[in-house]
């Protein structure tokens, strides 16, 4: 729950009541307010990153690694939630977007940035340039993924539901097969030797930004247009929403963040293999979004946290099994099935975390409560 906890110092983004948000903006210009929050967020992250390094627990590196993977999973789930949950376009190609971001940023770093960094003298300047290079590489990866999202978004103008899912699934596989055949980025051998530039700080910075941006979008006219497209395309069109444009927009935004997450993943794992981006990876992200509740941002976050830790937590089950068999993936699957049977709308449904708790506090009389 660490992730959830330290995003809370961003109340302006999470503010439920419009009035409070307005009061803040009236007193400060928007760019200054956002900048201050960002600075605070960065400070907290830096503190946490150092703290995690310093804690003298055996195997802290292992937990650190799982936290980072959790951050990447949250970014993936929240970005897919924009496409699947908000705009209602069922996409199974998220691993493809992630792969594009991962491979392109790794390519840039490996062939361009890392060699020029090596020529520099070691010191603060090199450290600074390394991070600048990382940001550039990851952003470029995100942008290329966004371009791919644009191209995949185009057929979604014509296709709906299952048909779109199949197209995006095919897209993901095309990307994987393409990578498998490009020798320069390792092909089937995998792409190794990527420098370890990404870390806890960058992953959670991106993760936080993705959540805030996604939240602000859904609270805006853009987000309302997404939701309108999801709810009823014909009615949305009749209300003046250019459904085509907003579908493509959702794809572009969602795939951008998937690409960025991929870039950070590449620079953290230091090794990429096309096998990592099989359609199973897409399903994993879809499972997070569906489990959390389609359209619920906090639901995606919670589900991503659970689905990252669950397989890890289940590792110890093996010790109690006769013959040392490992049933953790069986238990994992059974838990997913049980969850979907008992809560088909996902953990949080379409609500956000605080709306669910707010409802319990009020003990609403009707089965059909107001939205807030």
């Amino acid at each position, binding site marked *: 729950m660490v992730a959830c906890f330290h995003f809370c110092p961003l109340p*302006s983004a999470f503010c439920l009541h*419009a009035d409070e*948000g*307005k009061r803040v*903006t009236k007193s400060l210009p*928007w*760019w200054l307010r*956002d900048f201050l929050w960002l600075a605070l967020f960065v400070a907290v992250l830096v503190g946490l990153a150092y703290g995690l390094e310093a804690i003298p627990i055996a195997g802290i590196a292992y937990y650190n690694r799982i936290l980072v993977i959790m951050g990447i999973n949250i970014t993936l789930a929240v970005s897919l939630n924009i496409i699947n949950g908000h705009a209602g376009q069922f996409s199974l190609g998220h691993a493809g977007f992630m792969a594009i971001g991962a491979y392109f940023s790794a390519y840039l770093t490996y062939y361009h940035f890392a060699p020029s960094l090596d020529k520099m003298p070691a010191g603060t300047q090199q450290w600074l340039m390394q991070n600048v290079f990382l940001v550039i590489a990851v952003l470029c990866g995100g942008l290329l993924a966004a371009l791919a999202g644009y191209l995949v978004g185009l057929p979604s103008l014509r296709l709906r539901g299952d048909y779109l899912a199949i197209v995006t699934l095919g897209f993901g596989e095309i990307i994987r097969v393409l990578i498998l055949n490009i020798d320069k980025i390792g092909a089937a051998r995998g792409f190794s030797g990527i420098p370890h530039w990404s870390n806890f700080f960058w992953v959670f910075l991106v993760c936080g930004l993705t959540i805030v*941006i996604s939240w*602000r*979008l859904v*609270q*805006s*006219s*853009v*987000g*309302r*247009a997404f*939701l*309108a497209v999801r*709810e*009823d395309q*014909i*009615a*949305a*069109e*009749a*209300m*003046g*929403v*250019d*459904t085509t444009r907003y579908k493509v*927009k959702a794809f572009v*935004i969602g795939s951008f963040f998937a690409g960025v997450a991929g870039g950070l993943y590449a620079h953290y794992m230091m090794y990429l293999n096309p096998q990592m981006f099989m359609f199973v990876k897409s399903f994993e992200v879809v499972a997070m979004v569906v489990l959390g509740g389609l359209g619920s941002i906090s639901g995606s976050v919670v589900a991503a946290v659970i689905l990252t830790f669950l397989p890890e937590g289940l590792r110890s089950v093996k010790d109690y099994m006769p013959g040392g068999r490992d049933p953790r993936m069986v238990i994992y699957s059974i838990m997913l099935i049980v969850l979907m049977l008992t809560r088909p709308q996902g953990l949080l449904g*379409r609500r956000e975390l605080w709306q669910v708790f707010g409802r319990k506090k009020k003990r609403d009389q*009707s089965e*059909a409560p*107001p*939205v*807030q």
Partner: protein
Amino acid sequence: MANGNALLDARDVTIRFGGLTAVSHFNLGIQPHELVGLIGPNGAGKTTIFNMLTGVYKPTEGEIFVGGVSTHDFKPYQITALGVARTFQNIRLFKELSVLDNVKIGGHIHYKYSAAAAVLKTNRFHDAEEAAEHDAIELLKIFGLEDRADYYAKNLPYGDQRRLEIARALSAQPKLLLLDEPAAGLNDRETRDLLQTIRDIHQRFDIAILVIEHNMELVMELCERIIVLNFGKTIAQGTPAEVRANPVVIEAYLGEPAEAAGI
């Protein structure tokens, strides 16, 4: 060129689905502030005409002008931007969204801003959102729905859903409002209320209204001019009194008199 001051001008509009001519040679001109009724038996092609006017279907022949602009190559959302808003026969609200958000989406064309403005929460974002919120609440007040602004649209009673659909359409600030069977499924009392509501908004917003309706009482009382459709053809038009007395209309609704049919 289209008739300059007509809000809507449909000229010789024909649509065929395969071998079926759903609507043939339909003509309709609507002036600002007019209240026109479109009636006819089931399957006469009324909703098809609505779908052509709003760009859901493209006419096979003929052309439709909105405010003097040909809408032939326009998509539905572009026609909405020209000032035509509609409701649907089978209610098409955004069910899982709040009543307030439904109305806000109705005003989408007026309160748009870029995704970047939304993410950075610029002043433009705040201004547009404030205006959207204010206008939406005002509209909900007119329809007596303001205390249910936070409800999911799907949780409203049926009659309120119909009214919310009208509110949502009005939120687009149209010059012409198309109502597709607004009284369908309403009881007598609700229908009377609806009649009053339509009259009110007609006055208050100074808009033209084209209404499809099966409820004769409502149409006769509400509309200044009525067009009667049967098998895709216009068989009569005129004031309510004229239409009521027209033998062709009576025949379309009640069938031929026994003697004339030769029985």
